[in-house]
């Protein structure tokens, strides 16, 4: 099984839509893609796993390194995932507590703490 990668841009965000299987054979391509984006100074990344059929710890490792890489530049890193079989891998490794996992790309790129920001404005 192959890995599919599609990259698009929405303002400051780069969206990486991943499809297929992410394992020791295919994860290096995802790693290279994430490194290339950061090298292009794209520090706000969304990785959508909605079309992923399989991911193992090698794939999780690449996502961890992506998260670390954007954080060193003050960037943000979010995942989009709703498939229970894929979410289970994050759940049993404890990584649901590490990643910001959203249901949609729109939710992932929404401003952080929008309600709080609005409340602050009203308060002033």
């Amino acid at each position, binding site marked *: *099984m192959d890995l599919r990668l599609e990259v698009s841009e929405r303002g400051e965000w780069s969206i990486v839509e991943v499809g297929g*299987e992410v*394992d*020791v*054979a295919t994860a290096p391509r995802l790693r290279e893609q994430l490194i290339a984006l950061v090298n292009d100074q794209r520090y706000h990344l969304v990785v959508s796993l909605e079309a992923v059929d*399989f991911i*193992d*710890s*090698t794939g*999780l*490792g*690449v996502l*961890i*390194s992506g*998260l*670390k890489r954007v*954080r060193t530049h003050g960037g943000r890193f979010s995942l989009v995932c709703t498939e229970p*079989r894929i979410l*289970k*891998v994050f759940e*049993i*490794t*404890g*990584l649901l*507590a*590490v990643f910001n996992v959203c249901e949609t790309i729109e939710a992932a790129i929404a401003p952080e703490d929008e309600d709080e920001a609005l409340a602050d404005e009203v308060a002033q």
Partner: protein
Amino acid sequence: MIEGAAAAGDVVELELPARPEVVSVARLIIGALVAADPLFDEERSADLRLAVSEACTNAIQAEMAGNRKESLGPDAEPIVMRCVLADGQIEVAITDHGGGFDPTVLEAHPDVTSPDRLNYEGGLGIPLIKMLADHLEFRPTGDGTTVVMRFEPRTPGIRPVIGGVNGSGPAPGGG
């Protein structure tokens, strides 16, 4: 379809070249074997595919490390995957020739939620197998390691709880 074949103890043994591309082949094989056993549902089948993927990845990486090469040549030793279906269980043993491995070194990694954990990309594979398999054992061989994993079917709706009371028995008739 041969009825009762699994109860008699089916054995499938394969030699696979120690290359990253064969991990998906190993997953396909275990998925097909599990699909023939009605005791194992789709979720448990996914558990087996994941555990086999982790064990084969470790075996291949052990051989790469043992050979000090990024990619192995055609004369590299294959990894061996042996599956036994018997007594309603599936046992999968993966053998490498990577020169041996010490599973206790993995304990050195920080907790997954610790900020320091981001410094480690690896080290999640064996904890994952521990969560998925009902039994996990590392047997040193002369020049490598055999990882033995045993899987039982899961009763739908009942998940194992670490350190919890076994709740898989029949429910008492009211009270």
